[in-house]
Each structure stands twice: as structure tokens, then as C-alpha cells.
């Protein structure tokens, strides 16, 4: 397979088409523009639908409609646009239908900035809308991983009948790296038991709905959903451990920030500091067991994020107060530098000597 150079946004779009996505509904926003631009050109040529809706709210409800038919369907946006979509995301979760939602994060709150950020970690993992529900949240850190995770996102969504979010950011979206597209099987889950595809007067109606008149019925439905979530937490969490075996300091980082952290870890290792990196690939489910494994020899943990400290909460919860957890972040669209992270690592290294 030939390697090509592509921006993260374009590679994501190409991977979605190859993964059998047939409908894209969206509304433009920086810094995800290349994604919808690419799909606007390619979808009509390759048997799909590209539709620019009149608003984010319209787009996400079109996603719900498409997903209800069992079609592979997606939308993409950036932070403020995801906030607008959150009502629809809650309806999709409440309707138990699969889809892919992409957030190419930018600075916030409000209209914020158009530069890269990770300020939507809390939103993605804990508050994508009203109600008791979860999305599987995947966080790539390279253009190649963007491609790989798009395919996984569609498969997981269908396996568990739920929406999946791919959390990218302005840095990953805009950068070009060599990428190859794996052979992607067009095999999809069997949706014949629930998809609303027309009865042809030969079967009962398949009703896709998030409204329950009886509280007990809704409770039963939500509890069933949580049993599914428990299974996902058990089996689907994923993380990368980098030089953690002998690490006395473990730096946790996800997405683009992990690239900067990896550079800082390499610099610190060159100075003889025993430091490693733990990178969650699934933000929900958060890879708790893997973090415990990564920190088995650690004395200190440092969470580095492009926000004021969000994932650090999950790191602390997973470690259950067994280790001190420090935080370093830049926010608003500012990207931390490897030297800044190195300085934080050295502070902790001084502390344990």
C-alpha cells in the first residue's frame, strides 16, 4: 500500500468513505473545514451523500435519521458546533443508534479561538448532552491513527449500537503526515433487527425513539444501557505505554499533546531522568487498568493537557489517591512546548530525589 501525505482532516474523511460511510451531514466550522470540503467533493462521486445543513442542530438530527435506517453516517464539527449538536447527540444515545461524531477541537469557551485545544475533554467524556449516557470517545495522536480509529469507531458504534466520538484537534486536523489506508472490510454489523428500513408489510415496525411515557420503562432502558457500558469498560479500553516500565515519573497525555510530551520524555531520558508516558487512546472508557500498570514503579504522575486540567480528574480517580498527580497545561489555543513539559518533569524529579 502506497504512503501518501495528507492532512489529518482529509485522511479522516477518506477513511470514513473507505469504511463505508454513506452520509455526511454537517455545518462548516474552522478548524475542521478540510474534512467537510473533502467529503463534499468525494461523497457524490463515490455513492454517498454530502449535505451541508442549515445549522448544526439540523445536521445532527439528519444524522439521527440516517442512523435510524442503519446507514453508516457521520457528522463533524469543532467545539462550539458540538455544543449546538449536544441535544441531538443525547437523542441519538437515547435511541440506541450508531454514528460517528467528529470534534476537531478549538479554543473555548464561547466562540473562543480557532487554534488547537483539548478543552472539550469534560464535555466529550462526561457531558455531551442531557441524560444518563455515554459515548465511546477515541483520541488519536497521529494522522495514521486518525485513519485507524475512524474504522474502529464505525465498528464499535455498530457493535454496541451507540454513537462514537472521534476527538481530534486543530493540530492533528491541520498537520500532514504520511499515511496508508489499510484494507478495510466492508462487512458491517447485522442491523436487520432494529433498523427502520420499511416493513414492506412483512414484519412489525422498527421504532427508533427516545421517548418513554412510563418512568419504569425508561429506567429499565437506561439500566440496560449501563450494563452495556460496563461491558465496554471491561473490554474496549485502550492505551499506549511509552517507556513506563522503569519510570519513576509517568506523564499522562492524550491526542496531539502526547506528541509534545513524547518529545519532552525523550529529552528527559537523554538527561537520565526515569520518565515515561501514558496515553489513553479511549478517553471513555478511560483505561484505568493500563494506567495502574504504567505507574507500577512511579512516584509521581504529571498530566499534561491543552486545557486548565480536565483529564487529570480521571487520572486521579483511576489512581485512587495512591500517587501524587500534578498538572501542567496551556489553554485557549496555545500549544505547550517540549521544553515547558521538560521543566515540569524536572520539577518533579527534583522532588523525589
Amino acid at each position: 500500500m502506497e504512503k501518501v501525505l495528507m492532512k489529518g482532516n482529509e485522511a479522516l474523511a477518506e477513511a470514513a468513505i473507505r469504511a463505508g460511510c454513506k452520509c455526511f451531514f454537517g455545518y462548516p466550522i474552522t478548524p475542521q473545514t478540510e474534512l467537510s470540503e473533502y467529503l463534499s467533493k468525494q461523497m457524490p462521486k463515490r455513492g454517498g451523500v454530502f449535505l451541508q445543513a442549515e445549522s448544526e442542530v439540523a445536521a445532527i438530527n439528519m444524522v439521527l435519521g440516517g442512523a435510524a435506517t442503519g446507514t453508516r453516517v457521520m457528522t463533524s464539527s469543532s467545539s462550539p458546533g458540538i455544543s449546538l449538536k449536544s441535544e441531538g447527540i443525547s437523542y441519538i444515545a437515547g435511541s440506541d443508534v450508531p454514528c460517528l461524531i467528529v470534534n476537531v477541537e478549538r479554543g473555548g469557551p464561547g466562540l473562543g479561538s480557532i487554534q488547537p485545544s483539548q478543552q472539550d475533554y469534560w464535555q466529550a467524556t462526561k457531558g455531551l448532552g442531557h441524560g444518563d449516557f455515554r459515548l465511546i470517545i477515541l483520541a488519536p495522536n497521529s494522522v495514521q491513527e486518525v485513519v485507524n480509529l475512524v474504522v474502529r469507531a464505525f465498528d464499535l458504534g455498530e457493535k454496541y449500537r451507540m454513537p462514537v466520538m472521534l476527538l481530534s484537534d486543530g493540530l492533528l486536523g491541520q498537520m500532514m503526515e504520511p499515511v496508508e489506508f489499510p484494507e478495510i472490510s466492508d462487512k458491517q454489523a447485522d442491523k436487520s433487527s432494529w433498523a427502520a428500513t420499511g416493513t414492506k408489510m412483512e414484519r412489525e415496525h422498527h421504532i427508533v425513539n427516545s421517548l418513554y411515557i412510563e418512568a419504569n420503562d425508561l429506567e429499565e432502558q437506561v439500566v440496560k444501557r449501563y450494563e452495556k457500558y460496563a461491558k465496554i469498560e471491561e473490554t474496549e479500553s485502550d492505551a499506549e505505554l511509552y517507556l513506563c516500565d522503569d519510570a519513576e515519573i509517568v506523564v499522562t497525555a492524550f491526542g496531539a499533546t502526547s506528541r509534545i510530551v513524547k518529545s519532552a520524555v525523550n529529552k528527559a531520558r537523554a538527561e537520565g531522568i526515569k520518565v515515561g508516558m501514558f496515553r489513553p487512546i479511549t478517553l471513555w472508557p478511560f483505561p484505568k487498568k493500563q494506567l495502574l500498570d504504567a505507574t507500577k514503579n512511579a512516584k509521581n504522575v504529571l498530566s499534561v493537557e491543552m486545557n486548565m486540567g480536565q483529564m487529570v480528574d480521571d487520572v486521579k480517580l483511576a489512581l485512587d489517591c495512591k500517587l501524587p498527580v500534578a498538572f501542567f497545561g496551556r489553554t485557549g489555543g496555545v500549544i505547550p512546548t517540549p521544553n515547558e513539559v521538560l521543566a515540569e518533569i524536572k520539577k518533579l524529579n527534583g522532588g523525589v530525589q
Partner: protein
Amino acid sequence: MTYEILLAGFGGQGVLFAGKLLAYCALFENKEISWLPSYGPEMRGGKCNCSVCISDEPIGSPKVMEPDLLIALNGPSFDAFVPTVKKGGKVFADSSLIDAPCTRDDIDYFMVPATQLADDNDLLKGSNIILLGKLLGETGLFSMDTVRKALEKNTPAKRAHTIDNNMRALGIGAAYECK
């Protein structure tokens, strides 16, 4: 070997394109690469820069903070980024547009009157490629054959005639003897 390269100038001077050519050259030679544009509410004439990392190892941070090689196409970029160049690094700058002294003695300056050379040789807007030529000439990073392949990959069919002009610009840059 890892090269961290920063290209900077005004939007419209071909900063991103020159960076893309380097990235494609690296792709053809099976290197690890990242190419990252600065982006913002910017437009033609605004400031623009582009980070290119080329390595045999996987790339960590794609944002170049301390370049080994800097191409500066205008004065503000020269002023902003020369102080960030790594000790022992190289600066390639357009002396037609930059009238600043070369004060660091721990880096090499290659001051090329690229805009003037482009005008003299009927290579409109070719200053980016002339400086790229000088960079390739001084560093030997990629052969001219590889660059031609990168140009062919990045030039749409209706602009195919520009490939020869760009190759000429690369040659002029590479051959220029800095004072």
C-alpha cells in the same frame, strides 16, 4: 538524523508550498515527516509559517520551536525566528527584503537576494523556491531529481509549465554564492 525546518514569510509568498515540497521529498525517500502550517484568521499578506520535521525516527512534537534550518522570506520572520535557531543551525533569508544585521556568530547565515534574482530571471514570485534551492545546495538534503518528483506531484496539470521554471529557480538558488 532529524531536521527541524521552519519556513516563514508573508501569506502568498509560497511558504506552505515550499514546505510541502520538502515534505514530499522526504516522503519519496521513506523518511518520517510532519508538516504543520500556522493557521489563524490569516490572509494574503498576513504572517505565515510552516514547520517541517524530517527524521529517521517517529516525529514527536510537529511544531518546530528551535529550527535546525530556517527559511525567512521577510523581515518580520527574520526578526522573530533567527533568535530561535539551534546553535550550529542555518538561516536562509531573502536579502532583497530583509535589511537586518546578522548578529549571531553561532549560526550560519545565507543571505540571498531571492526577490531580485527572481525578477532578473523572469521567475515571478519565485523567491521561495530560490531560497529552497540554496538550502538544498548547502545541506544536500535531497537531490534535484527528488525535488522534481515532488514538484510534479504538487503541480496541477494546467500549471505543468511552472515545473521547469521552478527547477530553474532551484538551480539559481543553489548556484548563488553568498557574500
